[in-house]
């Protein structure tokens, strides 16, 4: 997030899109709801489903799946035409405005209505509300990123915020909500194919030299590696031979699971390090037992870039070991000695080689976490990004045309499917499904469908329905719900037994490598 969680309550207008906040970030959603109910903030929700937050919204826009760039361009069109842009901010802090203006020119609300299904007047109202706000905050989640145009969607939201000067001040910002607790940290720490810790590019020779010196090695490749969504097809082709998987369960979470399963089986060697024998671990050649968060010391970085302590409360079961210790032992056995007395020693090394973490230490975050960037021991941390300038100096507008999602409905597959999470389960369920009460509230997968669609297919609440896509098929229980809109069903992806990801499309965003979980075409029929 560019701004903090607490900052949400400072906003005059909050735009939430592609985030079912009350279910996926429940405590954060309370900040949104309080801002609306008690602090007079106006809420705009843009989401294809009638999620809980729509009950708090002043405006709910319901776009067709995969049309985000279009409605965002539409809002900018109105903002520019009605003079609601922050000219001073655009002049002083940005570049590329002309190109943007040209592209959004044709996205007038009527044109946009044709693409998105959002009534022109509603779009105008939303643009005015956002454009006139003193401080407006944008919150988004995977409903924005999990598209073949995910990167475009994110850039478009940044365009909208820059155009109206809604960055770098309290109550503003473009705020991605991270799904899993340490996504931010996994990215910060170089768990990505193109960067070392602190987003230092592997293509920057000076950086590579620095890391080689720090680590006492040579020959670190300077070409970006493969994203997970590319590793899988490479395994399928037999070009990726061995995979070391730590604490992930791609055999429920990956798109087009049938294909992913075949690919992983095709590996010569698979190591899975986890706390449970997950679906993925079952395919491994070696499974290494690791410890969970309650059994180790360390840090997590939350969605607002706050680095916070994790503390050991329990002894780990049996012979299980901390993930870092296991990896250090493997490295040492491969001839590169990795030895640390404790997690704090690792953290200190992180601070030495990572500029944005340089000023952090366990002592400093003992009581309360700090927000990176924190470049020195005296630096107070950075709750709000871009207050003076952007990382690259001026903020660059990206002129982006809308392109349709990679899969469209047709006669054979006439319904859209979108996937996501629910309150009572988490990711692939390996943790939450061990709690009886959570299973009581959310025992199994379901197919959320509108009353009209249910009637059309003669389905009643509780019936079993078969859902097929070009890639696979599952059977799950029907849940007729007012959250669903006609023509689109929703299935949570947590459940291995009716894994929504057997249906989803592995078409990727060309930049981020994120698959299009949020749109694919399916057909449904009553199961016997």
């Amino acid at each position, binding site marked *: 997030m560019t701004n903090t969680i607490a900052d949400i309550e400072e906003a005059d207008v909050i735009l939430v899109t592609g985030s079912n906040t009350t279910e996926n970030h429940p405590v954060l959603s309370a900040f949104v709801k309080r801002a609306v109910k008690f602090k007079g903030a106006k809420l705009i929700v843009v989401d294809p489903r009638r999620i809980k937050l729509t009950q708090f919204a002043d405006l709910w826009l319901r776009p067709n799946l995969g049309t985000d760039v279009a409605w965002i361009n539409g809002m900018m069109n109105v903002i520019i035409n009605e003079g609601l842009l922050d000219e001073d901010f655009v002049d002083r802090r940005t570049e590329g405005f002309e190109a943007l203006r040209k592209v959004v020119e044709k996205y007038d609300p009527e044109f946009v209505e044709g693409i998105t299904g959002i009534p022109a007047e509603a779009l105008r109202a939303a643009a005015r509300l956002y454009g006139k706000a003193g401080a407006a905050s944008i919150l988004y989640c995977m409903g924005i990123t999990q598209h073949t145009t995910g990167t475009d969607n994110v850039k478009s939201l940044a365009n909208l915020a820059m155009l109206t000067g809604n960055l770098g001040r309290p109550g503003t910002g473009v705020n991605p909500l991270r799904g899993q607790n340490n996504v931010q940290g996994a*990215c910060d720490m170089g768990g990505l194919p193109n960067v070392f810790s602190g987003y230092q590019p592997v293509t920057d020779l000076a950086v590579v030299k620095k890391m080689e010196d720090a680590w006492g090695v040579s020959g670190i490749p300077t070409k970006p590696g493969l994203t997970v969504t590319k590793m899988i097809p490479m395994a399928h082709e037999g070009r990726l031979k061995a995979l070391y998987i730590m604490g992930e369960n791609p055999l429920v979470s990956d798109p087009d699971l049938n294909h992913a399963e075949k690919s992983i089986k095709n590996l010569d060697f698979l190591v899975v390090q986890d706390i449970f024998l997950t679906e993925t671990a079952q395919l491994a050649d070696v499974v290494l037992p690791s410890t969970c968060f309650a059994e180790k010391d360390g840090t997590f970085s939350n969605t607002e870039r*706050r680095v916070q302590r994790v503390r050991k409360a329990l002894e780990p079961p049996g012979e299980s070991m901390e993930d870092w210790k296991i990896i250090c032992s493997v490295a040492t056995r491969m001839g590169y000695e990795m030895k640390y007395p404790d997690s704090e020693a690792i953290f200190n090394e992180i601070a030495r080689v990572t500029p944005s973490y340089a000023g952090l230490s366990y002592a400093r975050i003992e009581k309360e976490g700090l927000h990176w960037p924190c470049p020195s021991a005296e630096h107070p941390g950075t709750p709000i990004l871009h207050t003076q300038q952007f990382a690259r100096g001026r903020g660059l507008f990206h002129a982006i045309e809308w392109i349709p999602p990679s899969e469209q409905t047709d006669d054979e597959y006439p319904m859209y499917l979108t996937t996501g999470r629910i309150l009572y389960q988490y990711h692939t369920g390996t943790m939450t499904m061990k709690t009886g009460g959570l299973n009581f509230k959310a025992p199994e997968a379901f197919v959320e469908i509108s009353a009209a669609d249910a009637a059309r297919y003669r389905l009643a609440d509780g019936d079993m329905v078969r859902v097929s896509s070009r890639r696979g098929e599952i059977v799950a229980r029907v849940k007729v719900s007012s959250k669903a809109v006609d023509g689109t069903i929703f299935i949570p992806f947590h459940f291995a037994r009716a894994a929504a990801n057997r249906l989803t499309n592995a078409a990727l965003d060309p930049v981020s490598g994120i698959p299009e979980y949020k749109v694919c075409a399916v057909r449904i029929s009553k199961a016997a």
Partner: protein
Amino acid sequence: MTTSKIITINGRELTFENDETILEVARRNGIEIPTLCHLKGTQPTGACRICVVEVEGARNLMPACCTPAADKMVVRTESPQVVAARRLIIQLMLASGNHNCAIRGSDNQDWTAFQLKVQEEDGSSDLCPVWGDCRLQDLAYRYQVSGERFDATVNRYPIEDVNPFIVRDFSRCILCGRCVQACCEVQVNNAISFGYRGPFSKIIAAGDRPLKDSDCVFCGECVQVCPVGALVEKEARYRVRPWETGKVRTTCTYCGVGCQILLHVKDGKVVKVTGVPDSPPNHGSLCVKGRFGFDFINSEKRLTKPLIKENGKFREADWDEALDLVAGRFREIVEKNGSESVGVLTSARVTNEENYIANKFARAVLKTNNIDHCARL
């Protein structure tokens, strides 16, 4: 020059901000005034009146939590009149339900009969489930009162234990309303409210149904703020007493909000989780996963030994054998097929330190940039 406004509390002259209450000024200056219904961050309701203080010139005692401080106000927080009022309130509350902790007192004839009745209603031979962790009990000690002055009132509503996670026991509810404020003003889930009137008052959900059939999302905020034993975690009820547990502060393992939590540990197991109050980002709030989704930690399905697959079946192995095998196979494959033929998937669920180590392992040891994680999926 601004002339600052002065309030006098217990003889101390104190300055205050414009919209501060007597309670806020007092607390800021280390003067303790007891409260029950007051819940930080919400609109004061003045429901319990335990915070009453004497204000010179006022006809009645005033509740400190909802009386604004005023210039030249003179306040006494523990005068005989105040203490008498508080004692009466506590006595009435104790008599209002099944408050069967030691505070109940044992001089009267009815001690045994009362305990037996409560124990039958509770289905437990123990004292109150939150005995030792109850604000009402604390106050009864502080003001040296027992529950015997008034006859125990009849218990109108049975225990509600059909919900996952939360047991609602109206016999111990003092109707302070904190749960309603927590639900409606802090979490804004609007699942519960006051229902019925007078002696029939009750906190209700969805027109008086069990929580599980209401809008309740089991965040447990209400349980955390309930000052007495009316709302208790189902799994901890009777099983966990606060003095038996150690508490360790850490960060929630589920979503990216990063709520600060306290793990309550008893006999090497997590038995309860609460939010860390007054600390960002969550200021005590949690959701159902963070508060109640901890059973996996002690699950019997946890992996405890390395496993090696042989002929399609896993067998247990010791660490040396497993680690040698992993190191050996990776070395072989890298030698034979090059560094691009191997990859590492790190995780959004392990620590920064572990992600950093995975990144170092991939790049410095395997010499590959094929490292990613599944968290964007």
